[in-house]
């Protein structure tokens, strides 16, 4: 999905570097990106939204009058009220507490697995590209093989065999283990052009060790792509998590996540719609804000994508 977008960005990052160097009055790279980012209202809105959501996930459980795991048996399936701000579920759980906790879980899973995916994909993708020859051929063959593995099923199996309390860690693990392959391919393609740059040749001819070159010259120069990829990867990971949990294959009670609450809500959509509404809004706001930030970052880093991309 993100392949073509990323390719475009990386090319532009390379040229951006050139332009800067001939640049006239020099402005720091980060100041420049921050300034361009701030100039896009949608990106700023996204950032504010995300900050609010994160604050909510942290502060919510503390200000809620009920814990997410202490049901109020006197108020089953109640509409929002002063006592239960977002209403309660059929089991009497406080929806506000559930959403705060679930959002926190989903965010944790999303961010952790996205960062892990980026790290793994960066190391493997650049390594395959850097060594050319048989390493590249074997590496690409392995990646092709891994791509056809039914990941959804395997993740479900991994999570199923885990206990309820640390199920989310296994879910993060599963999403990561099967999520890096596509990105690694993209990063390999980007590295193909980087490895032909003179400073990479120069380092080779100086006798710098291969893994040092990868760590010192290749990965940092994919930096902006990696940042964008990590941010947008959060959306993908949160979506995987909610989908799995919604199908009952991810996070299970007593733990909770947005997907788990959604699943509980969909059966009572007519009698207690608030159970569904609150987590849906949280999920939509989360993915929406991250997407806005991702778009804003892409445009800020890549001065040529004024068109706003195709995403």
């Amino acid at each position, binding site marked *: 999905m993100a392949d073509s977008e990323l390719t475009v960005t990386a090319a532009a990052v390379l040229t951006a570097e050139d332009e800067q160097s001939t640049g006239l*009055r020099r402005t720091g790279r980060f100041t420049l990106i921050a300034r361009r980012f701030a100039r896009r209202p949608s990106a700023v809105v996204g950032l504010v939204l995300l900050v609010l959501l994160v604050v909510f996930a942290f502060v919510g459980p503390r200000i809620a009058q009920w814990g997410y795991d202490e049901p109020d048996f006197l108020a089953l399936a109640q509409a929002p009220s002063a006592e239960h701000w977002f209403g309660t579920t059929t089991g009497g759980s406080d929806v506000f507490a559930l959403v705060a906790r679930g959002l926190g879980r989903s965010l944790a899973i999303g961010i952790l697995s996205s960062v892990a995916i980026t790290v793994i994909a960066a190391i493997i993708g650049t390594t395959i590209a850097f060594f050319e020859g048989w390493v590249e051929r074997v590496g690409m063959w392995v990646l092709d093989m891994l791509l056809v593995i039914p990941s959804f099923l395997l993740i479900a199996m991994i999570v199923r065999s885990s206990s309820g309390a640390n199920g989310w860690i296994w879910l993060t693990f599963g999403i990561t283990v099967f999520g890096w392959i596509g990105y690694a391919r993209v990063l390999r393609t980007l590295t193909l052009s980087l490895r032909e740059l003179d400073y990479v040749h120069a380092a080779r001819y100086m006798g710098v060790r291969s893994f040092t070159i990868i760590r010192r010259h290749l990965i940092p120069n994919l930096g902006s792509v990696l940042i964008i990829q990590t941010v947008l990867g959060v959306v993908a990971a949160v979506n995987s998590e909610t989908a799995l949990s919604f199908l009952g294959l991810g996070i299970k009670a007593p733990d909770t996540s947005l997907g788990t609450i959604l699943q509980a809500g969909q059966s009572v959509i007519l009698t207690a719609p608030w159970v569904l509404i609150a987590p849906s809004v949280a999920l939509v706001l989360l993915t929406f804000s991250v997407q806005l930030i991702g778009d804003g970052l892409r445009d800020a880093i890549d*001065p040529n994508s004024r068109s706003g991309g195709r995403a």
Partner: protein
Amino acid sequence: MNPVLSVRDLHVSFASEAGTVRAVRGVNFDLMPGRTLGIVGESGSGKSVTSLSVMGLLDENARVEGSIRLKGTELLGLSELELSKYRGNEMAMVFQDPLSALTPVFSIGDQLAEALDLHQDLNRKQVKERSIELLDLVGIPNPAERLRAYPHQFSGGMRQRVMIAIAIANDPDVIIADEPTTALDVTIQAQVLDVLKKAQRETGAAVVMITHDLGVVAGVADDVLVMYAGRPVEQAPVDELFARPAMPYTMGLLGAVPRPDRGENRRLVPIQGNPPSLVDLPVGCPFADRCPLVEDRCRTAEPDLLPVAGRPETLAACVRADELAEQGVTFEDAYEVAEAAESTLESVPRSEREVVLEVEGLKRHFPLTKGGFLRRRVGTVKAVDGVTFDVRAGETVALVGESGSGKTTTLLEIMKLEAPQGGRVAVLGKNLEELSTRERAGLRRDLQIVFQDPMSSLDPRMPVYDVLAEPLKVHGWSRPKVNARIDELMKLVGLNPDHVDRFPSQFSGGQRQRIAIARALAVNPRLIVLDEPVSALDVSIQAGVINLLEDLQAQLGVAFLFVAHDLSVIRHISSRVAVMYLGQVVESGDTEAVFTAPRHPYTQALLSAVPLPDPQLERGRKRVVLEGDLPSPVEEIPGCRFASRCPVRATLPADDQRRCDTVLPVLTGGDDQLAACHFPLTRTSAGLTDVRETTRA
């Protein structure tokens, strides 16, 4: 006579992240029918923006003010539709990169027809006839067949000819050529310049020739406009400008170019510093910070382009121009010519010096494959096929040849430090074939490289300190020693050691190349390989880097293997030269000997194609213009590889011609000069004279 094109007070500015870029600030000129105006200046001085504004091809974020009149009609302010009536019809443009100017999906014939149809009422047959006539005029062989070819099937030089054909299709009054030969090799450049002159004669058009190459201007222009920081700073007839430049920048520019026709080892004189930023220009003369003759009043107001007292045809933008003209100040008076460093190895004759690199019969062939899944071999690219030369301690050996002749491949074969496909390479006496892993790691210290493009040879994310520390760390230097060495290196290459925390993007091109040189020097190598180290730099900056290399060699006794296509730079810097053609060394030897009396016909043609920065010499000169392009390196050539283009072969009797076609010549000759030719030129027949009268060895 009325001017065909008249530009008045042209200002162009662009909005950018960093602020408003004032790219052109007050350009004025009149172009008379049939004349050629050369616009010269370093990169970024506003040459291209000027030409694009005349054509109305600027980006949307440009603001253009002033007046551009074509035969009395004001062009500024015309709509796109109205402009297109003039564009391609009364004025036409030839760009630097013809591949991007031609549409890849249409055949040459279609593109010519489009140009003709747009402005003329012709039927199919007439269009075709006229197209063939045009291609013939620009010297494309078999024009009728070539109409069906696509741009990618043409070489760079051929594409540029097609561009010229399209430009003259509608008999324009003005042709604007923006660096039309910069991307081409010298022998092809000579062909294209000839074609352009012929096209001008046929159409009677006036030409604006934009270039950074003073030699090209000297050869083609009638009048010259020198630009600096977006402004014309001097305008004069070509002879006058080259003979008596009126203001310090022009003097400096002329003094900074190495001369291909002079052997004397005159020290080049760089202009200090860098051009100002076009975003916040200083008050006063924009050249003031670099000008050796600057006075306080230069910094009060920007000087206007005004007539110079006593020189009726010269205009200059310098407050001291009158005074300088009156005193007859020349380049030598204005600029301080520094002394070259004393060489430590000068007294040791070449034969007694250690051989640091020996290359003998080096071969590197690439398989040419076709098809996707089951690749089948359809041929062999003989990128390097018999290269022989050696480099001794403390000397500079130049490798020269046109693009595709295999220079870069040769360098990479050496840098790999692995056993070559064929032939023998020995670095410091160690044969690469018998190298242990340990010895190879050791040799990595003695052999270093500097690349052409200073933008891509430094990691943009590493501060200069880390860039310079990289090779030192590889060879296990301790931290305090690294610090001391970096300080020393920065001083050695003429940079401020306090700037080690800056990033490469904060330096100019010339400074970056100095950093790359410092990096190569870091671990005290014996041999540095330089792949086109100055060709990406402007002349005034290039001179400084060349001087630096000369001084470093003299002080440190390091040897250079110097690859370049610019023969003037090579004559200036090298003591020995090897000329390559299609993967082989065709002539090698002492630089002076090769330049004054070339023995291989290719060397002679190459030398005679170099434009001289001297209009009088240029006019009086006879050229050996080679026919055609370099053959494809895939072609099997049993005999002499130069046979298809050799002017000497054409004059030989049939028997001798057969010998050229069937027997591969090997390098023969005395110690100082070897040539691979069966019928080498003799000392008397060579020189830069006309080959047609003097062949027959």
